[in-house]
């Protein structure tokens, strides 16, 4: 009899530990969002390298837990918590920047350096979202973290939100990556709105060949200039330019391949899964998250708007034959290489023989530098 009652008590206790006993409506919603991410990645091929880890991470992070079992991502000492420290303390993003540097060819930018300015103009989106977030009642630190979504750079967004608003890291990173995946949907209407048919078929001067020496000088000079002006951006800028030097030096092929290959893949897996896990229902399903998503969308629109508009303004000062096709203005928002691809695809719609991809890569990589600089400035002012 006693044995039987003990058995029943054990079963009852076990039942309390199961996910079924602890499930809430929020958990179900978040698991469904995770499944949608996985669906979009597999079926629509939208940023699968990010959406699959984030989507599955959402499912992992939203399995209802009995508190105190030391398995949840927010429970000190759990495995997920240890892995999450890379996001929380911000050491994954610089590693990703190392990989980005090692895989980025800055030739388009070096051959036509005025494209750097297009990359700068597109950073207006960050500060529009910052002002919007302040108006909605966020603190300046939170607003800075939200604003960086407009930089369209996932690692930068994670890095800055980890420093300025750790509580919002889940919403900010998911928002940033979602809009990066949605670049082909968000940007074209703004690009068409701001350009005439004549402007869309402008043929740009083919980029000149860039010497190896210039490619080697670029990361060194680029880092020295940007880091001396914005030292708070060193983690991101340093790794970006270091990775690029590994690539361009020509004597560290193995290191460059590791940085852009296995190392980058490992960090992408860890960052994706842990960011997904961090979106636990109780922390993610809040009114703030909805506002963050709205501000993120607005910042992408503003960034695209400013990039395209800036190209048109620059064209006023350029001679015929040197003019920029304003369709490359959108690629200043980084989101490498998706936004450059959008420029190319849009350009080909109006002139199938006009290849804008290489030209668009210029502002695209300039946007990466610009958003890292902007993140450094925000960190300097608000951190």
């Amino acid at each position, binding site marked *: 009899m006693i044995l039987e009652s003990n058995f029943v008590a054990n079963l009852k206790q076990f039942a309390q530990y199961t996910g079924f006993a602890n499930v809430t409506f929020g958990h179900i919603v978040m698991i469904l969002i995770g499944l949608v991410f996985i669906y979009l990645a597999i079926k629509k091929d939208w940023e699968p390298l990010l959406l699959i880890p984030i989507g599955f991470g959402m499912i992992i992070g939203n399995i209802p837990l009995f508190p105190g079992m030391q398995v949840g991502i927010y429970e000190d000492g759990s495995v997920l918590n240890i892995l999450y420290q890379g996001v929380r303390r911000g050491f994954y993003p610089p590693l990703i920047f190392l990989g980005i540097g090692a895989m980025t060819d800055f030739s388009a930018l070096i051959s036509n350096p005025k494209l750097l300015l297009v990359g700068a103009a597109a950073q207006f989106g960050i500060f529009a979202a910052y*002002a919007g977030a302040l108006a909605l009642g966020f603190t300046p630190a939170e607003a800075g973290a939200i604003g960086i979504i407009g930089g369209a750079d996932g690692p930068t967004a994670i890095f800055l939100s980890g420093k300025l608003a750790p509580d919002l890291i889940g919403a900010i990173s998911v928002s940033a990556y979602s809009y990066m995946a949605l670049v082909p949907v968000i940007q074209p209407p703004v690009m068409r709105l701001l350009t005439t048919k004549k402007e869309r078929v402008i043929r740009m001067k083919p980029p000149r060949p860039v010497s190896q020496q210039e490619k080697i000088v670029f990361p060194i*000079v680029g880092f020295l200039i940007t880091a001396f002006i914005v030292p708070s951006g060193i983690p991101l800028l340093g790794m970006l330019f270091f990775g690029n030097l590994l690539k361009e030096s020509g004597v560290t092929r193995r290191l460059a391949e590791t940085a852009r290959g296995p190392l980058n893949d490992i960090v992408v897996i860890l960052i994706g899964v842990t960011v997904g896990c961090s979106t636990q229902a109780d922390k993610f399903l809040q009114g703030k998250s909805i506002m963050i998503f709205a501000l993120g969308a607005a910042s992408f629109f503003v960034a695209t708007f400013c990039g395209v508009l800036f190209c048109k303004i620059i064209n006023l000062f350029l001679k015929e034959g040197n003019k920029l096709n304003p369709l490359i203005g959108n690629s200043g928002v980084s989101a490498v290489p998706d936004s450059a691809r959008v420029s190319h695809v849009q350009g080909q719609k109006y002139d199938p023989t006009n290849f804008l991809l290489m030209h668009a890569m210029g502002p695209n990589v300039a946007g990466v*530098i610009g958003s890292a600089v902007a993140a450094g400035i925000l960190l300097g002012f608000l951190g």
Partner: protein
Amino acid sequence: MKRLFSVLLLTSLLLLSGRSFAQSAVDIRLNEVLVTNTSGLTDENGERCGWVELFNTAFGMVDVAGFYLTDDKSNPTKYMIPKGNTATVIPLRKYLILYADGNSQKGVFHINFTLDGCRNLYLYSTDGETLIDEIEIPAELAENKSFGRVKDGEGKHEPVGWSKKSLRKSSDDKKIDANGGFAVLDHPTPGYTNTTKAIVTKSEKMKEMDPWGGILAVTAMGVVFLCLIILYICFKNIGKRAVRKAEQEKAPKAQPVPVKGVTVTAEGGINEEVIAAIAIACHLYQNGDADPTVHDIESNVLTFNKDLLRNSPWGNKMLTIKQDPQIK
């Protein structure tokens, strides 16, 4: 000699031990005092009374058991902090609260006098003679306001001439520094630091300076543009130089010295040797029975008896080994 050494060693040890005791004793401070408590800290019984906070300024633990606290200088041993309780050990840079409810039977840290009407508090060492610290409480101290050091353990309520080297046994020549480092604290902090001034973060400062974000936006965009404009100027110039250099390299050099039996075109065009080589390569390519390995079909390059290709990277170990850099 050995004896002298032993005496010196013993003396040093004694001096050191004495010094460490002295340092431990003198490192305790009367840090904060609250006389009338109607809405603040409660004791373990949930009752409110005045309290005294001790602070250990040392970077080591100090046991205050046996120390004396009094409001009457003529009776320095009025209240002794009980011995035999580990809770009397104050860890480094930590605090101990004594409840001044006038009933020492209530617990270890309950003082046998109250602070009502109290103007001075004295802390004596275990010998009941060595004054460690004292505090003069303002007469007009309002209820629920405390009086204490603005910065923990810092202040000049010390006997003049007091130093760690010579611990005086008399407090006659003491005086209270005009600045003191003491103040009435609007927000009592029993058991916590007295530095209650809120730390203003950069974010809070920015909220005050720039509530709508306009200044930050303009400044930050200015810096982003500045960075990228400097980069633009640098690489525009570097690019110009690179183009000039490439043009110089491309420019026709001195006429090549004709090889015996080979003529050079008058226009400085392709060397006839090269033309001959291309012709032979084409001939070999079109001739079906020629060695198919001669040409690198994959890259659409016609080659003319280039020995290296016979040793493909799969077969030639030298081609797979990284060459040492050559200093030219």
